[in-house]
């Protein structure tokens, strides 16, 4: 398998020559992806504001810039498939269809948050929606996601596990223990490496001897491709390919998503390790939402008016979530002792 050559961290994301051809989206798909990505973007902006106002405490890792990754992947899976990720998890939860009110209320530490306020930003789950967290230990979720693949294999269903982790997480040992096991047992796991070029303040070329993460499974014979993670169509196409591979019982697949986070690592990170110009360049040339927006208008799938309406609807959902999360009661002190053990 040929793989695209290494890209230095300072270059903008570019599609790999090995990625599958990008199928044009239908009107329906363009509109859906636009709306869903916008929901994540606005939700995260609001979470950032609420953090600034002191309504949210602790850690808060925003997903702004990376929206096309989860939305494209979500468009490639079906009910019963599982999703698991690390602490940068708000986008994944919204993509899985979890209630923005419940997510925001967890961020504010309230009673009707998904974990009753006990989990916080990094630790939320919805078994109903197939979302298995929300994990604070970098790369811890990679082995868990492998286990999600194991149950699909064991039950003999054709579901797959989408196991997300970052470029920084890719340097943890259990990632490779998991790769080996998944390939050995032919487990249906799509390992999605969200390469946003930084792990906290460390650029990938300062932490990784092999910065082409799609190659990280080569010694286990796990196929991997680099994908333009800023183009939701490219993500969907790669997702289809990988998911189909897994459903067919051929084992795991690695997708390296070339993406970018616009904000600091968490709300407390001023991101001094990169230039404003670098961020600006990605924003203006590769923004995942702007790309869809431009196509929608250009193909006359929607008018400015239509998009304004979508915008307003999304804002209303986010405002409602924020309102809810600001007024939902604080958890009862007795909750300290619930769900420790049964």
């Amino acid at each position, binding site marked *: 398998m040929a793989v695209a050559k290494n890209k230095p961290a300072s270059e903008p994301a570019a599609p790999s020559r090995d990625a599958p051809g990008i199928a044009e989206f239908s009107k329906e798909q363009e509109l859906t992806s636009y709306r869903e990505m916008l929901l994540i973007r606005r939700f995260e902006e609001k979470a950032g504001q609420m953090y600034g106002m002191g309504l949210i405490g602790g*850690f808060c890792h925003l997903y702004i810039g990376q929206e096309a990754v989860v939305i494209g992947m979500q468009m490639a899976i079906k009910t019963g498939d599982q999703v698991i990720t690390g602490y940068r998890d708000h986008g994944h939860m919204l993509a899985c269809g979890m209630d923005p009110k419940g997510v925001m209320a967890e961020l504010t*530490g309230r009673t009707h948050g998904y974990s009753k306020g*006990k*989990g916080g930003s*990094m630790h939320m789950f919805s078994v109903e929606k197939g979302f298995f967290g929300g994990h604070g*230990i970098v790369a811890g979720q990679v082995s868990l996601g492998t286990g999600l693949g194991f149950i699909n294999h064991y039950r003999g269903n054709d579901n797959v596990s989408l196991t997300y982790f970052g470029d920084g*997480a890719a340097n943890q040992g259990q990632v490779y223990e998991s790769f080996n096991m998944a390939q050995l047992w032919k487990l249906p796991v799509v390992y999605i490496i969200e390469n946003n070029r930084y792990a906290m*303040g460390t650029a990938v070329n300062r932490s*990784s001897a092999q910065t082409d993460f799609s190659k990280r499974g080569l010694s286990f014979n796990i196929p991997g491709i680099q994908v333009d993670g800023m183009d939701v169509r490219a993500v969907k196409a790669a997702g289809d390919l990988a998911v189909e591979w897994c459903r067919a019982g051929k084992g795991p697949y690695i997708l390296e998503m070339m993406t970018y986070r616009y904000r600091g690592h968490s709300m407390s990170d001023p991101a001094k390790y990169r230039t404003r110009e670098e961020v600006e360049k990605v924003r203006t040339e590769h923004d995942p939402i702007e790309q869809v927006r431009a196509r929608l208008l250009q193909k006359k799938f929607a008018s400015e008016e239509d998009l304004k309406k979508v915008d307003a609807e999304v804002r209303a959902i986010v405002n409602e979530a924020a309102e809810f999360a600001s007024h939902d009661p604080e*958890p009862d002190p007795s909750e300290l002792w619930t769900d420790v053990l049964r």
Partner: protein
Amino acid sequence: MAELTYRDAVARGIAQEMERDNDVVFLGEDIGKAGGVFKATVGLYEKFGPLRVRDTPISEQAILGAAMGAAMTGLKPIAEIMFSDFFAVCFDYIANEFPKSRYMTNGQVKCPLVVRTGNGAGSRFGAQHSQSIENWAMMIPGLKVVAPSTPLDVIGLMAAAVRDPDPVIFFEHKSLYATKGEVPDGEIVDTLGTAKIVRPGKDATILALALMVPRALEAAERLKAEHGIDVEVIDLRSLVPLDTQTVLASVARTHRLFTVEENPRLCGWGAELVSIVADEAFYDLDGPPVRITTPHIPLPAADILEDLALPNAERIADRVRRSLEG
């Protein structure tokens, strides 16, 4: 004399030792160029350069394993594990390798290294980034364990830890990084295994560590002001070696013992202290020893719940008063 934050004291303590000894190296995630996630190591990379201050990949096992390999052969590494919760990710080195090196090699292989780590709660980080795990380290034979509560102690105990021939686990408390204290100029070197009486008193002894020290002191002031109860507060500073003399002598004067622990209740360090006092000074006690701890639960993210979980001055004072009056 200068006023220094606990955070700046970490950088000063490390710098003092790196200046003194070229074999001291420092490694960890985002500790160099970024100055540490808690900004406790700002300036070290610029001062000592990338050979001695190394930003590592996110690979805790390799960080500690490499630190030990280098320590076995002559370097004196200081390794950072960003949050103490991540000890669980690399516990093999902490539990099986460092502490057994001297013992299993007939004393040939020494492991003179320091693992420093951000311990404790108070920042609403939730169950996987807030734990107090000093008891995890204390339970392993072959490790030394310190946990300073002031900037001065940070520098002095860091020096003692780096110069010590054995592996030392150095717990910094995340909620103390912003606190300030007076620190004299010049070299500061302290001694491991020495507790400090930070407030003398005659009615009861309170043992505390790290963030629980200022809370115990506040409780002591309240008890004095509101109830005329005069408690002695001891900052243990070091769990291994443990300064039992200072503790036993205090109990012999006050006849009552309280521990204030942030670690969860079962097998917390206070249980060990109570057991030692019961063994060695049972007849000095006028009443049952009392442990004030975080309950035996994972830590919640929500602020009101986290505040409820940790011992605070009010809870400490109340518990001590009820116990002494009861």
